[in-house]
């Protein structure tokens, strides 16, 4: 129950922040635009808070425990998931630094290994095949400007896509 209450509090804080911002939006010059830019956001914010309050009351009454493995770092599942979330975050951050090809070559095997895959040769083949396919299909065939990284890596990427 505690986890859901914390979640509801965070959602509630988000809605309150949204509502404060909505109230501070400038009024419209057009007298027929009754709602203005802030009209619907204010209505949505108030409605959101009312519904959230009703849900929270129900959570209090039901008292059902919800397990969130992502935050349970003591368990193997929790650690595996948290590591994968962190890895995805690192993958995103590295995209603009070392480019798409290198970051994907790093991400795929490490993430699969952390999930529990233990066949190095198959993993290597999979990593190279997926990275090559994505680069060729998106970068070369469909001319999507994939992230190139910085410095020398950027220059090198122009030789591929």
């Amino acid at each position, binding site marked *: 129950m505690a*986890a859901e209450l914390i*979640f509801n509090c965070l*959602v509630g804080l988000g*809605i309150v922040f*949204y509502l404060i*911002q*909505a109230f501070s*939006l*400038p009024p*419209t*010059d*057009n*007298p*027929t*635009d*009754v*709602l*203005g*830019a802030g*009209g*619907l*956001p204010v209505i*949505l*914010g108030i409605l*959101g808070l009312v*519904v959230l309050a*009703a*849900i929270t009351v129900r959570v209090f009454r039901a008292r059902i425990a*919800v397990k*969130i493995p*992502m935050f349970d770092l003591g368990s193997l*599942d*929790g650690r*595996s*998931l948290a590591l*994968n*979330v962190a890895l*995805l*975050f690192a*993958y*995103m951050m590295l*995209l*603009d630094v070392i480019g798409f090809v290198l970051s994907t070559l790093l*991400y*795929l095997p490490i*993430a*699969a290994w952390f*999930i*529990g*895959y233990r066949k190095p040769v198959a*993993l290597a083949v*999979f990593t190279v095949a*997926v990275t090559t396919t*994505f680069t060729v*299909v998106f970068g070369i065939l*469909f001319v*999507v*400007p*994939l*992230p190139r990284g910085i410095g020398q890596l950027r220059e090198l990427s122009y030789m591929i896509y």
Partner: protein
Amino acid sequence: MDVFIQALGAVFNPLSAVLVIVGTLFGIVCGALPGLSTSMAIILCLPFTYTMSPDLAIVLLIAVYVGGACGGSISAILLKTPGTPEAVATTFDGYPMAQKGQAGMALGLAVTASSFGTIFSAIVMLMAAPLLAKVALSFQSAEYFALGLLGLSCVTSIAAKDQLKAALSVILGLMISTVGIDSINGVERFAFGQPFLLNGIHYITVMIGAFAVAEVFKNIEEYRHRDNTLQQGSVSIELMKFGEMVKMWATFVKASVIGVIIGIIPAAGGSISSLIAYGETSRSHKHDAIKFGEGNPRGIIAPESANNAGVGGALVPTMVLGIPGSPVTAVIMAAFMIIGLRPGPLLLRDQPVLLDTIFLSLVFAALLLFFGGRFVTRQFGHILKLPYPLLGTLIIALGLLGAYSFQNSFYDVIIMFIAGVGGYLFDKFKYSIPALILGLILGDLVENSLRKQIIIGDGTAMGFVTRPVSLVILLMVVFVLAWPMFSKLMGKRKSSAA
């Protein structure tokens, strides 16, 4: 008759046949890859049409359009990652079917429904194009608002388990849709001076995060506890038997009618029609043995029929009025102009063969989709044979690429990540991700048409009820919202009487 024979000659010749095959397959592949839209597929084909005759160019572009409209369902069913926005509703029942080991059946249903929807819309287009275009033009802000509300009301059927949490999910989706520049008076809202937020948060990136990335997170934590031999089975496409198809004829026809009608309305789009068709079907078949959201075949038939029926529907205002109703038809209209055709009221008079050529191209592409779609979808089906650690990382990398290539923006990737974590928590606390996406997709339409109608009405909202079409749609909204309560009440009365 001469005109039809000329059109037959233009479509059914060896070169056209090759173009239909290539175009349909190319459309399916582009539709199946998140981040590559149908409009992008058509744009990529455009340079090849420069030297073609108008007939051949039309055949190719229509084939790509039909293939793209169906392709989105492949990744929606196999990976829970809708390849196109129109395939969002297909994930609701398509992915649960794939999880039960019925991926082949789900893909077969999608292909069958897409083919049916396309042929249905082609027939409607041929019979009533000018008349339908006139009706579509009568749609103004009041009708658009009512249509948006009708779309939102589907939440009662797509997230029926917990209506309160579904309502909050829709509200949160609507709130996210208000981020960016207000399109009525240009006020910056909730952007905090960040340029990437000025264009708003697009539902494609949220969808990829909340559906695909969140699903991978969920599977990672369950990976060690489940029977991982299940996913090793082969995926052979099972097309629906004629007898089974006949049993569900009403779902095919109803969804196709919804798809054609909404497709004709400019700017309404396939995602709205597929959601409304899904909502209507799940409402009218809620007592089926397999619940909606747990792998009900009608949950695939309805959105896919509606989505592809929108293809013929969307071409009606494009050709007859010169008004492209969607980004895809805008690209097609541009292509028509490049090859020397000027869409508008005079097009059908000056080019009498054109309508029949488009009709036959649609039918040809739909038939190819039905018979040849097996081959392409089977190749995608092999993905399911991968062990989950490889499949999961593949989905993440593809999702990231899809989010990035959508606007070539790194910020979209960050939004995808946030939506992924948010979607995971939504799933844990039993909130509704489809309802959130519904709010996000329809938010713009609802707010803009609501405010425009109030401005047109000098600050009053009477226009919503004084315009007959708007009033009828609003009454439908009331019916859809009140029906669950009404049927519950009736059920209680029956049980107490017994």
